[in-house]
């Protein structure tokens, strides 16, 4: 006898679809105009891309286990967004350089996180929270006397616009799909990914099976912050402006997206597809509540409640499978 059980990413996507269809009945919803509906859906997915990319790094550190979390992700997003902004200065040929800077500054910050966690045995929560403070301080120093810069036209075209006028799919979504495939390759089809899951479940077993736990841990924190850095690059390409509080609002949704996507917060089990679905669900709920003109306080409450409900459902499923 097989109990009805459904994998978390599928559950999250189903939830998103149901919510979206229900939203059609709202007074200012899409009603029965299919074109408007598609346009709205596309827009929500496009908005989810930024959260989704920032949550990719979060997915990796959470899978790595042992209370793995990256609380510095938000401030890294702000920092690399500002760095991109001042590096590019509206010139197309500086974009690649800006991307490189974003990735390596992110990786460096993550590497320091990893050093503290691995060698000084500071808990990931404290280490990355402290790092978030340091990075915010850095941002203020850089920002002192205003930032002058500009996003390059090519960035706006690549990130915010559709592929071509005939195909109304924004490039951001295409970037995200490719990104999702690369994340799948990393997690499911690379030695690194397999070792990552292993250290998330049991580090003694991992070490005794030849996994270099220290190196894997350092790599995962570096990579996570590099991905947050990539997120910052994408965000500024979309908004076109930078400000000190740009990245911070992404931090808690990035953790929530991972959880809603069914990744075990204790580590060792999860997927990036789940996180993508989680990012879509969270973005959808936020935008629905905004359309319904709910105040920020209500939005926060609904998001928090959704997270609790989803996680408790997954918990129960695991319960009766054992």
């Amino acid at each position, binding site marked *: 006898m097989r109990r009805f059980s459904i994998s978390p990413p599928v559950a999250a996507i189903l939830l998103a679809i149901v919510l979206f269809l229900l939203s059609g009945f709202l007074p200012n919803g899409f009603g029965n105009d299919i074109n408007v509906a598609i346009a709205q859906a596309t827009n929500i997915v496009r908005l989810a891309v930024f959260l989704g990319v920032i949550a990719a790094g979060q997915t990796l550190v959470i899978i790595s286990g042992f209370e793995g979390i990256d609380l510095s992700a938000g401030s890294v997003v702000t920092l690399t967004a500002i760095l991109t902004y001042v590096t590019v200065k509206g010139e197309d040929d500086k974009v690649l350089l800006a991307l490189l800077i974003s990735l390596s500054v992110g990786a460096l910050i993550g590497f320091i996180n990893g050093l503290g966690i691995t060698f000084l045995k500071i808990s990931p929560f404290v280490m990355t929270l402290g790092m978030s403070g340091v990075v915010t301080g850095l941002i203020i120093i850089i920002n002192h006397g205003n930032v002058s810069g500009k996003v390059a036209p090519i960035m706006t075209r690549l990130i915010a616009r559709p592929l071509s006028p005939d195909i109304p799919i924004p490039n951001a979504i295409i970037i995200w799909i490719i990104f999702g495939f690369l994340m799948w*390759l990393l997690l499911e*089809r*690379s*030695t690194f990914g*397999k*070792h990552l*899951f*292993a250290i998330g*479940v*049991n580090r*003694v*077993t*991992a*070490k*005794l*099976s*030849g*996994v*270099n736990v220290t190196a894997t841990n350092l790599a995962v924190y570096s990579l996570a912050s590099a991905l947050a850095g990539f997120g910052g690059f994408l965000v500024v390409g979309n908004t076109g402006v930078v400000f000190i509080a740009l990245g911070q609002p992404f931090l808690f949704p990035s953790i929530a997206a991972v959880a809603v996507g069914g990744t*075990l917060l204790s580590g*060792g*089990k999860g997927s990036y597809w789940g996180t993508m679905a989680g990012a879509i669900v969270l973005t959808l709920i936020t935008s629905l509540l905004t359309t319904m003109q709910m105040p920020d306080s209500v939005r926060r409450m609904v998001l928090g409640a959704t997270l609790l409900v989803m996680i408790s459902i997954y918990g129960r499923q695991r319960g009766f499978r*054992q």
Partner: protein
Amino acid sequence: MSVSLSARNIVKRYGGVVALSDGNLDVKSGEVVALIGANGSGKSTMSKVINGVVVLDGGQLLLDDKPVRFSSPQAARKMGIATVFQELSLVAKMTVADNIWLTREPLKPNGMIDRKVMREQTEALLDLFSGTFKADLRPETIVSDLHPDEKQIVEILKAISLNPRILILDEATASLDSRQVERLFELVRRWKEEGKAIVFVSHRMEEIFRIADRYSVLRNGKTVGQGDIKEITEKDLIQLMTEKEKVFQFTKAIASEETSGLDQQVYLEVENLTTETLRGISLKVKQGELLGIGGLQGQGQRDLLLALFGDIPYHGTVRIKGEVVRFKHPRQAMDKKLALVPGDRAREGLLYIRSILENFLLPSWRKYGFPLKMKLAKRDAMAISERLSLVMSGLMAPVSSLSGGNAQKVVIGKWLLRDPDCYLLDDPTKGVDVNTKAEFYALLTDLSRQGKSILFYSSDDDELIGLCDRVIVLHDGKIRAELKGASLTKENLIAASMGVSNGGEA
């Protein structure tokens, strides 16, 4: 205060495993009874039954000739039974005084803890052992800062602070030095005169003869002999501990004639290996040899295997095929074609929530390139699971869905996939069903026929005698005896594990 405790026909099962089938023990005021037995004979279960840690399934406990039933250690403690545990029961981050008086702190009239009284009482207790430990053992010292011997002393003081009528010393001397043991024995004699009854569990034969008045021998869950210690010799005690009937028919890997030949190359050579628990181990393993490691549990067998595999640091020299190696990480040992099956499969050998496939391939993923060749990986894993006749619902099922024996097959299977030259096995048949055991024996024999070197630690003496050509017996971190050929008997094995010399060719 006179007291007597009798355990009659005690039965205790853990799941399907019978730990005690007929355990008996009598102890009364003013005497020390030694509880003796080989590995797995049930002596630790017996002491747990008496102090209420486990609830018995059958039989009777009589305290002062009245039947009693302990539902918890607290219940036993209320009746005046205290235990000095071998696996320490102290809270590491609390002070010595806090630990000793935990839940029984002396209080001031206003309900606050009276630190001054607690300190004085702790100092009075520490005075019992004064002069045998360093000055850093004070009532306010944090327990985690103490040495193992000092922790053991605190453990003893904690038990005696309850002023018990019956005191159980479960391997309490294992980490004490000789002066401390001497002092403990003086105290035991004093407690005896005060009318306490004492149960002494130890694996040191010499201590048993020094302190015990009577003995009770367990074998395979049954009490097989009780009596006055003056009326028995060391040799007879060992005879009693020795199992007569054998469960398995073993086939030895290679006729000993062949192995002892000079043509077999030495694969692994260890000289003066020293770690925290090992005190200078030297040994040689030839190609195709199945070398047994025996001895009671926790005599350094685990450290020996882990040190060879590069998991813990050591002093000394290790040579593989004549070349000096010094592994700092298991990865390096694996690259030299070593494999380790660790002793605790749940905590050290498996990724419980991951699939069988991933568990099989964990040490080998690097071989499968990028992107990983999953079809090939599945085929390889399938071949191994067929070779081991693994009972599973599929390769993608989590390891947690497997039975104990099948889970252990996965731990061994992940190494078979790499085809190592040398296997280090830490009690691989522990908690494994009889059929799977038989399959393991066949596998080990097969591997050594293929020329693989195997270091095989087992807590089951029959296995060692049945499978190995040569067995080294560890005691207190040293090789106490090397048994082979005619000297490889159960009597000699047990004698050597109990630290009795002349138990074989040293």
